[in-house]
């Protein structure tokens, strides 16, 4: 597949069937659709308990047109390692990808992922981070940001979220990247790079969720863009010991663009209604984002190109 530089270069072949059971406006279904376009027919997917195991639909039909194995909640990365080992024994070169939600990665699946990255298994691990356990009814997870409403944090979460990107860099992953399907060309360039590489590759995808984040499904793409433009989500990639910002985040890091005030991102989502009520909380949220940015600028300084 040649490099995709504009929307017209996106391949027409599809591997996600229409009529899958995802909610209207699901960013994860969009991400999976494009990931399968990039990886192509020669792919095996493994999925733990998460939204993707639900949107496949009801037996005897499935919405995913490549071999797919559902597995237990904690073992997506372990299963992917095993599938890859099986193909290696048979002498086949197949792309093996584990697609998991944030609950199955940040909380429950992190030991399997950490082990697979440490062994440098030849797999791609895609986390679609919708920032709560959406498929079981919006419970708080390690990825839920500060102040967000969930059914288990009715007044808003009081803790900060985990940073999986940091954990994976410290864990020694060869390729780590953050993406969001709102910026499709960035998405394509990172996944095409991930496809060509060997070794453990972890891609973290911000996946806006209309029922969980409490917004109109039509704003899915806009919210993803706002998350990047306000700095709440940072686009970067870490490749062979070199860290660099990409896309709009690169412009922010180089001072060519200014971060939008975070309020524009928060007020579109019903889950932040507790924060929107008080000015102090909005300011605190802005402070958290600035703090996070400072951390990442330091990381970029440490792992810059030599």
């Amino acid at each position: 597949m040649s490099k995709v530089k504009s929307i017209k270069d996106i391949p027409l072949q599809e591997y996600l069937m229409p009529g899958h059971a995802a909610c209207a406006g699901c960013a994860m279904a969009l991400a999976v659709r494009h990931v399968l376009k990039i990886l192509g027919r020669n792919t095996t997917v493994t999925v733990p308990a998460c939204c993707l195991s639900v949107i496949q639909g009801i037996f005897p039909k499935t919405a995913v047109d490549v071999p797919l194995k559902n597995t237990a909640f904690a073992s997506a990365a372990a299963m992917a390692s095993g599938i890859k080992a099986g193909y290696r024994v048979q002498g086949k070169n197949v792309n093996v990808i584990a697609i998991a939600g944030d609950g199955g990665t940040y909380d429950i699946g992190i030991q399997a992922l950490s082990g697979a990255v440490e062994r440098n298994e030849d797999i791609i691990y895609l986390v679609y981070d919708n920032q709560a356990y959406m498929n079981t009814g919006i419970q708080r997870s390690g990825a839920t940001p500060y102040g967000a409403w969930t059914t288990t944090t009715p007044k808003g979460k009081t803790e900060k979220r985990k940073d999986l990107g940091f954990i994976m860099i410290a864990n020694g992953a060869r390729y780590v990247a953050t993406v969001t399907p709102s910026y499709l060309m960035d998405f394509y360039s990172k996944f095409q790079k991930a496809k060509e590489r060997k070794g453990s590759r972890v891609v973290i995808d911000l996946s806006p969720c209309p029922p969980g984040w409490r917004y109109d499904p039509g704003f899915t793409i806009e919210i993803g863009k706002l998350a990047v433009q306000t700095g709440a989500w940072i686009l970067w990639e870490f490749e062979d010991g070199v860290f660099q910002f990409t896309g709009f985040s690169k412009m922010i890091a180089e001072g060519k663009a200014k971060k939008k005030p975070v309020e524009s991102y928060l007020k579109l989502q019903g889950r932040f209604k507790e924060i929107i009520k008080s000015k102090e909380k909005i300011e605190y949220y802005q402070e958290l984002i600035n703090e996070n940015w400072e951390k990442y600028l330091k990381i970029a300084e440490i792992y810059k190109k030599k």
Partner: protein
Amino acid sequence: MRKVEVDKEMGLKSVKEYPPAPLSKPAEGAGGKTGLWRTYRPVVDLNKCTGCRICWAYCPDRAIKLRDDGKVEVDYVWCKGCLICFHECPVKAIDKVVEEFGE
């Protein structure tokens, strides 16, 4: 009743033909006729459409189809009515109307 339906859909004749593990086959409409979920219906104005494919690329449901002339049309069998296409169209060629399932 349910068992017979399943057998028919999978094309199995006897118990011996059952797969050793629960094995689903790729097919359209695994989640049912998702077009029935719509409250709003996106309508493409072909005179305004420039064929930029942005709506096609951003549709999570594959409900936007490319026509032979490069423009797009909506597949109302699967369109869930999320209206991402309505919001993202750069030339506002897609309009939304309240869905009235006829007949």
